[in-house]
């Protein structure tokens, strides 16, 4: 392993974590989706770089899937959904941005400490990759937890899945079929959630998940 390949992989994975942080402080939905598209592009680059380094050509397919679906199809779809729902002006973070960022930093530190501790004998590239992937997953969860709007919860979920793809490609020898099926299941989830969004909207005039709770007759 020469130093440059390692550095570039490191850079791309680190960039992915950085973009995850960017997601945390977006308080407009359009901006959030744009950042998500950026996230997917960085992921595609990272996967492509892994394909090149590992000489695993099927990973190019994964990169292409990431680029086409996650960077283009899904963001465009979400844009249209938001326009049709007319909720692009909503500000919808449930927790203050400062504390969210602090929590995010803590999570990244946690995943670094954890991964570097439990994988001392692994390949350094895979090791760093796993640490970054875990941070991205936790940050994605954090996005889901700190948002009220169903659309942004979907975005958080998708970015979480990006972390999974990063982890999967970082490990050598992961079969293509696994990655394709993960990507496919995400697509299905996107469609199902999209349909649900409209259903919720029709029923409650809002995609704020709080409306669901009000409907159940409970306090928050």
């Amino acid at each position: 392993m020469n130093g440059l390949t390692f550095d570039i992989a490191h850079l791309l994975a680190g960039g992915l974590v950085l973009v995850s942080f960017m997601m945390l402080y977006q308080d407009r939905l359009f901006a959030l989706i744009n950042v998500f598209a950026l996230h997917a592009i960085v992921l595609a680059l990272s996967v492509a770089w892994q394909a090149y380094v590992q000489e695993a050509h099927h990973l190019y397919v994964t990169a292409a899937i990431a680029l086409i679906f996650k960077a283009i199809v899904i963001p465009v779809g979400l844009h249209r959904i938001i326009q049709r729902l007319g909720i692009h002006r909503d500000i919808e973070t449930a927790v203050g941005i400062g504390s969210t960022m602090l929590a995010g930093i803590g999570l990244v530190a946690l995943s670094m400490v954890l991964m570097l501790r439990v994988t001392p004998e692994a390949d350094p590239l895979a090791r760093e990759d796993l640490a970054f992937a875990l941070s991205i997953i936790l940050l994605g969860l954090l996005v889901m937890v700190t948002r009220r709007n169903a659309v942004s919860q979907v975005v958080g979920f998708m970015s979480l899945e990006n972390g999974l793809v990063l982890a999967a490609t970082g490990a050598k020898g992961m079969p293509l079929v696994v990655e394709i099926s993960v990507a496919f299941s995400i697509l299905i989830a996107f469609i199902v959630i999209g349909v649900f969004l409209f259903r919720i909207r029709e029923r409650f005039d809002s995609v704020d998940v709080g409306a669901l709770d009000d409907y159940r007759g409970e306090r928050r």
Partner: protein
Amino acid sequence: MTSIVSLLLWGVAAFLGAAVLAVAVSRRGSATHLVYGATLGISAAMFAIAAAALIGDPAGVSTVTLPLGLPWIGAHFRLDALSAFFLVVVNLGGAVASLYGLGYGHHEPAPHRVLPFFPAFLAGMNLVVLADDAFTFLLSWEFMSLASWALVMAHHREQDNTRAGYIYLVMASFGTLALLLAFGLLAGPDGTYTFDAMRAAEPSGLVAAAALVLMLLGAGSKAGLVPLHVWLPLAHPAAPSHVSALMSGVMTKVAVYGFIRVIFDLLGEPAWWSGVVVLFLGGLTAVLGILYALMEKDLKRLLAYSTIENIGVIFVSLGLALAFKANAMPSAAALALTAALFHVLNHSFFKSLLFFGAGAVLTVTGERNMEKLGGLIHRMPLTSFVFLVGCVSISALPPFNGFVSEWLAFQAILQSPDLPQWGLKVMVPAVGGLLALSAALAAACFVKAFGITFLGRPRSAAVEQAREVDRYSLAAMFILAGLCLLAGILPGLVIDGLSPVTLSLIGNRMPVQMAQPWLSIVPIAESRSSYNGLLVFVFIAISASLAAFVIHRFASHALRRGPAWGCGFPDVTPAAQYTAVSFAQPIRRVFGTFAFRAREKVEMPPPGATAPARLTVEIHDVVWETFYQPIAGAVGYATEKLNRLQFLTIRRYLTLVFLYLVTLLLVLALWP
């Protein structure tokens, strides 16, 4: 040539087939005959095979491994002397219960709720006894529990039956959990689940102690050891009577089998104090069980409580066997173990018989409450006779079988001065005292059960209409009564039959008894003690017939009926008779005050007032109130609190999952 154990497994398969068949035909009129006929045939065949294996090839071990269950383990089955003996108990009980069911089943209001589970229950009990690895054992155990639970719930609309079923289910799950942990401990870190591997392993002292406690919890809760007995008097009477007989007479024995298999066979050499624990629990169970029975006026519940007492007697003998085995006194250990196993067999005889009798009373009168029965001896003379035989047997009176096993237990207790530990030296005679107390109380209890139910005058209209039960039921009861007498006058046969079991578990046996002259039994030596059931029987028979002859020869032949003495009351209603509660009053006053916190309250009207005086008795189930009510309260409180988790927002749920994940990761990161 197929091995014996595979033959037996075919029998189990036939039971399961009968269960499936029963589902298909259960709504047809002939279903009762078909299903009970099938189980009768299969049980009889399995009984014959097991008995032949026990007598014909006592030292033989037959194993088979089927590719079922967990893929890398398979299902191991094994037949040795111990399992052959318990197969005899299970299938004899099963066969007689099926015979009884042929008649009793016709009175069943919902046969489709009973018929499919009856063969499944028998299959489960057989499988437990045959299992040779922990997984198969637990699976069969749970299958047995669930099948019997379904039978308990057969009459689920009757009052209290749902509660009985619920408590039974909770206790059975708890017991299985304890067994699971016990086997987990025995399997060790390598996870070797076959009994062969467990037998070969030498568990450390701590593991053995934990396994003993867990087995006492697991097998003890199924057998009915105090304080784990609470489900038993609720669940056993709730089932149809032939199933009650199976549950009380046979299923508790399967639990005893589990205990013996693990503690005597798999665990290796016992520690001496394990005998103390088992002895203490056994003695406590025996006395408390029979005291509960004495307070009871429901006939079937009385029988169920008496089952608890008998389990106590069995566990006392097992505890003695453990103590002797730990101190390398093999002949005394063999004696104690023989007493335990003999009592297992006896109890399966007379408890089944008594439950059949109670079932017969229930069918013809529709009544389980003894306070509404009475005078049945005139209407059901045959049932009364066999019930009396059962009562005499369970009260341990010679020449019947109950006397022999309890006598053997006392012979084993008399060996205790040879024990080296002072703890045991003091403990064993004390437990012997408890055993003697419980035997005496049992006699009182069954005088009450028989006297109130069958003697005196009818206390309700239903009893006056009663007629004798059908022939199948009578046949089943007479077979059991005959077996009680046979085992009582030919105990040597049974003791010799049990010798391969004690040989395999303890490495010693009691002296050969059939070689003794005149069918005597001599547990240790002629100089110490001997008993001859046949002689006692012959003496009783001759003296009784002589007395009868003398009376009939020299007294008047005329049958005279005079007015019953009415205690000075001019108009004697049947309600003025001695009742079950009044019969038990002296004993309640002696023991009940501390055992049940019984309080009597007398309300006397002032002189001149015409209001009746009232005597109210208040009895507490101390075990329930001490152990179970706090637990139930705590569980209720926790559920009340956790109920709020049901109604969180989606984001809160996500946050909970997230926080949990982060906590786990933190633990992983900070773990040294």
